[in-house]
């Protein structure tokens, strides 16, 4: 039952196709793809195929694929690599904390966002940079396209993965393998045009990123991406209907609930909602006792006791928050069971 819900930011299950491959891959060991002997050549061919597959799903060229063993460094590579003397950075108020960290101490402007996830649309100048989120990691809301922006665009696709395509004009982009149930520790970074990008990290040569990443994890990520996209295409309408059903239940059977974004402006497999007058910590514990593992963005559940900056920036209720992911393996009966339990608990807690 634990698979019904969960934190879609950090605890996605590894796709079965990827985990089957990994068990065998790690037993066998991998040669360095940069060396010349036969085993290395074999590793290089497989890695190349993986990059080819990843590029195809993400809508980029194979030679644009850079593998990052630490996806978070991609924010620095992608944003700082585009900044120049006199550049301003524009970023939505519901951006990830990595973006806030980069904005600290430089000329930057935070963009207001509304509860549907739509951010103010800046125009900027040619040398300015927009850190644009294709979809928001915490709520699943899909952003409006950055068409009006005159400057360079960094695309944070870590939450949307292969489900949303890149905007028409992008400069750098970042994905996290976890978005498609791939293994942790695999980020994909791409640069549209090398001429406008400068490596912000100390470096000796023209390489964009370190070659010190795991070959089997990268191949597993490519396998997961392939399988995830196939599963998703097959279940797209089913997931959407289930999402609609959950929204309907929350509004009509439970009530006083704040759901992030609408069905058409949110990733179909993700839901974030907050119950008025409910302590998320108690709710999460009660659900856990009944066999439902649920994550929350409420202050009571965070380490620093501060409310989620994302929920607050979007004007969404920060208490009583729950996040739900409709994984490929989730059955409708399980979701219904979960919703019924939720209804009883909320009624008891509000009494």
């Amino acid at each position, binding site marked *: 039952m634990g698979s019904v819900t969960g934190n879609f930011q950090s605890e996605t299950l590894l796709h079965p196709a990827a985990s089957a491959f990994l068990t065998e891959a790690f037993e066998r060991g991998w040669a360095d793809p940069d060396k010349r002997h036969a085993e290395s050549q074999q590793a290089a061919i497989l890695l190349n195929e993986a990059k080819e597959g990843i590029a195809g799903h993400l809508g980029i060229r194979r030679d644009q694929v850079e593998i990052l063993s630490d996806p978070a460094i991609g924010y620095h590579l992608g944003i700082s690599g585009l900044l120049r003397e006199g550049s301003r950075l524009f970023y939505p108020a519901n951006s990830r904390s990595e973006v806030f960290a980069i904005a600290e101490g430089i000329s930057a402007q935070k963009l207001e966002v509304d509860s549907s996830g739509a951010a103010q649309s800046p125009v900027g100048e040619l040398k300015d940079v927009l850190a644009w989120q294709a979809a928001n990691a915490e709520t699943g809301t899909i952003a409006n396209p950055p068409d009006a922006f005159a400057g360079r665009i960094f695309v944070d696709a870590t939450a949307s993965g292969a489900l949303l395509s890149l905007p028409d004009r992008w400069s750098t982009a970042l994905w996290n393998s976890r978005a498609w149930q791939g293994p942790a520790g695999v980020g994909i970074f791409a640069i549209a045009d090398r001429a406008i990008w400068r490596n912000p990290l100390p470096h000796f040569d023209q390489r964009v990123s370190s070659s010190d990443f795991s070959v089997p994890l990268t191949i597993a990520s490519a396998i997961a991406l392939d399988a995830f996209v196939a599963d998703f295409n097959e279940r797209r309408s089913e997931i959407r209907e289930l999402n609609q059903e959950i929204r309907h239940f929350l509004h009509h059977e439970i009530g006083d609930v704040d759901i992030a974004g609408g069905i058409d402006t949110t990733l179909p497999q993700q839901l974030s909602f907050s119950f008025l*007058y409910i302590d998320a910590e108690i709710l999460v514990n009660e659900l856990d006792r009944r066999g439902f593992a649920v994550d929350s963005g409420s202050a009571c559940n965070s380490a620093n006791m501060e409310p989620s900056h994302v929920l607050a920036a979007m004007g969404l*209720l*920060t208490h009583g928050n729950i996040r739900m992911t409709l994984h490929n393996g989730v059955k409708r009966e399980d979701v219904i069971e979960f919703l019924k339990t939720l209804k009883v608990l909320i009624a008891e807690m509000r009494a």
Partner: protein
Amino acid sequence: MELDCRGMRCPLPIIKLATSLKESEEVILLSDDPATLPDLNAWARMTGNSYEVIATDKYLVKRL
């Protein structure tokens, strides 16, 4: 009426506020929890009630 929720954590100030508003049309809420301001904002949107910030950690809340 004045409601002192200083030292309380979310969602307690909003729960107590809703209870107080049943008895009084206007409530002065004192709350130093960092979630109070964003939650008052969302609560007002959801319930139709209104609020204004009158000082740090001090809000005037009016029933719809």
